[in-house]
């Protein structure tokens, strides 16, 4: 259908052969120091959603990059519609009908949706003038065909994360792919938007497109997938039908441990009130927020994407300038106007976007760990090595040396470095924004462990998480936010996923 709208679809799609549309045969890839993939085979039928799961570093990204032609395998063949290819380039992969949508979907914010869809392949009228009408018409046709809500003339900068995702999907479909690869497509989406995306994926599959769906979220995988392939340490562990599979079973295959062990919260005695926030407001938090958190307690903050959760944390940490309010922390009153002042007041914040606002990618693990610690000490730096060695041991950070550049670490280890930076300064209140997003299950487990240690040491923790089971299991109480204000606070033990979601959405009654 989409091919018809464009008038450029490959005939092979119409031919409808029965074998797999794509298969990978005995693919191996070695990087200096790591074997990313070892003799992995994989196949995909037309109209199938085949999910790829595994911890970070299991080889999912490498497999995806090989299919997209970004990385060349050392051994093995890629068979597309019966034809074997040794190597693909990004261009030839597209031409052969493989479209890839990366996790960090890149759209150009100064161009419209239609411009982004056609970026690099603009239809040209005379000389070099872009045929904007044709772009818009075709984009509109694909959008209508998909039955989604997106304005082709909307500027990239004005798009929500979900709309950006849609733009990338429309762009991918313009190439009439036989194979569509989606890498963590829901990581920046809220609950309702995720639902839309999953149903869209199903609809695309029904049209005969083979879809490779990579995700950390096992519930999504179980719902959207036909088959699931589990990778572990670069090796193929199992391929099984989604029907009949369980999250626990998958986790077991991914790590060889039981999922139930991960989410049991150690009970820590809850002490006196450590921090009381009174009438706090500022950019992103229009209504004054008031809440308190006790020693040994985890206050979860729940809400949909855009409800003001991150904004509230940033306001408390002085990233945004507060307009009103006071923080009473450990007997002192303050209103920090910069992160520096917030640290002095006893706060810390592990930000959501590691790469953009957390780490110094070109600097060593040692320097990344010691950044905040150094700020509290003398003008001449001393004892960084001892500090870094201690934290690397304590948090189990996997790195060849503390002198390794932090950008070479895996996502989970990078997150541990960021958490380690704040453990080093011994803050009173630890705030985490999506601490386990994009992190493998092993590292997740470790992060829950660090949080438990903080609580035992009498610190208080404030967590924003979009992962409802996580929020429910890790929190003692949950503050629910909507439109930049705290609507209510509930005890986690009495809440369910359904009851929270209703509160998030503002649905009353049953």
């Amino acid at each position, binding site marked *: 259908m989409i091919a018809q709208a464009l008038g450029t679809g490959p005939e092979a799609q119409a031919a409808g052969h029965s074998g797999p549309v794509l298969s990978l045969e005995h693919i191996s890839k070695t990087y200096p120091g790591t074997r990313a993939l070892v003799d992995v085979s994989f196949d995909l039928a037309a109209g199938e959603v085949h999910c790829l799961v595994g911890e970070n570093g299991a080889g999912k990204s490498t497999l995806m990059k090989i299919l997209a032609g970004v990385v060349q395998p050392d051994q093995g063949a890629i068979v597309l519609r019966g034809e074997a290819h040794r190597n693909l380039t990004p261009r030839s992969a597209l031409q052969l009908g493989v479209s890839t949508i990366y996790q960090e979907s890149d759209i150009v914010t100064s161009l419209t949706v239609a411009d982004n869809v056609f970026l690099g392949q603009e239809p040209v009228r005379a000389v070099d003038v872009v045929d904007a009408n044709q772009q818009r018409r075709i984009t509109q046709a694909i959008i209508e065909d998909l039955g989604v809500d997106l304005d082709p003339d909307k500027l990239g900068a004005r798009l929500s994360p979900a709309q950006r995702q849609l733009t990338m999907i429309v762009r991918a479909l313009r190439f009439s792919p036989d194979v569509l690869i989606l890498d963590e497509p829901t990581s920046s989406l809220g609950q309702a938007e995720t639902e839309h995306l999953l149903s869209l994926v199903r609809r695309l599959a029904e049209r005969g497109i083979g879809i490779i769906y990579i995700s950390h979220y096992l519930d999504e995988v179980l719902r959207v997938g036909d088959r699931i392939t589990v990778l572990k340490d670069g090796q193929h562990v199992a391929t099984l039908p989604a029907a009949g599979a369980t999250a626990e079973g998958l986790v077991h295959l991914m790590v060889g441990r039981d999922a139930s062990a991960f989410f049991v919260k150690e009970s820590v005695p809850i002490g006196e009130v450590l921090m009381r926030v009174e009438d706090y407001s500022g950019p992103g938090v229009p209504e004054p927020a008031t809440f308190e958190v006790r020693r040994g307690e985890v206050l979860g903050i729940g809400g949909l994407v855009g409800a003001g959760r991150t904004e509230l944390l940033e306001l408390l940490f002085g990233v945004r300038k507060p307009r009103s309010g006071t923080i009473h922390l450990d007997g002192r009153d303050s209103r920090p106007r910069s992160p520096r002042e917030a640290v002095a007041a006893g706060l810390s914040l592990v930000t959501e976007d590691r790469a*953009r606002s957390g780490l110094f990618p070109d*600097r060593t693990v040692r320097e990344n760990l010691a950044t905040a610690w150094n700020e509290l000490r003398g003008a001449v730096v001393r004892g960084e090595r001892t500090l870094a060695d201690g934290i690397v041991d304590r948090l189990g950070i996997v790195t060849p040396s503390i002198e390794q550049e932090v950008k070479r670490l895996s996502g989970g280890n990078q997150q541990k470095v960021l958490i380690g930076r704040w453990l080093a300064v011994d803050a009173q209140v630890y705030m985490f924004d999506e601490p386990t997003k994009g992190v493998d299950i092993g590292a997740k487990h470790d992060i829950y462990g660090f949080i438990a240690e903080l609580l035992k040491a009498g610190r208080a923790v404030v967590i924003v998480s979009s992962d409802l089971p996580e929020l429910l299991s890790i929190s003692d109480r949950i503050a629910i936010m909507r439109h930049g204000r705290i609507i209510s606070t509930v005890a986690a033990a009495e809440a369910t996923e359904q009851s929270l979601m209703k509160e998030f959405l503002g649905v009353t009654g049953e």
Partner: protein
Amino acid sequence: MSQASESAPTSSPAAPGSASQRTRRSTILAFVAANQWVLILLLTIGLGIFTGLVNDRFFNPRNIISILEQSSVLGLVAAGATILIISGNFDISVGAIIGLAAVVMAIMVRAGYPEELAMLAGMAVAITCSIVNATLARLFQAPTFIVSLATAGIFTGIALALTEGIIQLVPNNFTFFSSTRLLGGNLPLIFLISLLGYVAVGFLLRFTRMGRRTYAIGDNPRAAFLAGIDVSRTTVLLFAINGILIGVAAIMLISRIGSALPSTGAGLELRAIGAVVIGGVPITGGRGGVVGTFFGVLLLGVISNMLNMLRINPFLQEIAFGGLIVLAIGISWLRTRVGSDR
């Protein structure tokens, strides 16, 4: 610089047996890629030997001393530029500031003020102008590159107004620096001062909290802010430190040439940036060190001396300078390919 040389041995796995040959080669390759100054040093030595074979006056101690002496002013400016570039900043007005400081010093001694007071005034001018650059940039959230491009015109204009375009001759003043030779007349004082500048910058970058902040701001300013670093204050302080270095450079320059014009020092900032890049600091900041800058400056000095010795058309010097920067860019491209396959 330092951190790279420390990490190079640990990052390569020790492989036994037949692979060890390859591993050793890749270790050396990785070390050279991470320490661009090694290549620059080898190039300098190579050019030196070649020149010495053609014209044996090159190895005359007097000639070597003269190379060091001629590299001294650029060395101070380049040491300062190293700090700024690592922190992700540029000061395009350095040449103009040096011109203004030199003019102020010359006018003061000609008016009968003591040399010491004139030098203090020159330093004050250099530090103030640098702080103005950083403050404007932080105030308007603008890149220091463009702010200093604007102020360069202003500083030169002030110098022109002060001198009314007339050269200020001070042949008998400030001669202490350019005429003093230490160690039995072998070591020019001016070179020693330049060396102290490098050492101070090297110490700052490697061992101090200010150094850590410099790398942090250059690598990821938002992360630095969120880690509790006061980015504005640090930037202003880094420019003030650069002001001290270029203030000293202005004194050395006027001591060497014995006169001052608003255009004294013109173009130094670009040569300094060139030397820093040749030494291996990426133009995007966040990494690198002052050792590379030292050898970058030395290489430029050797090339200029070599072209004299070989009686090659001096216009070629500009071509060689440009060519070297292209080479440095090529090396850093190669480095990203060798260094990070992942």
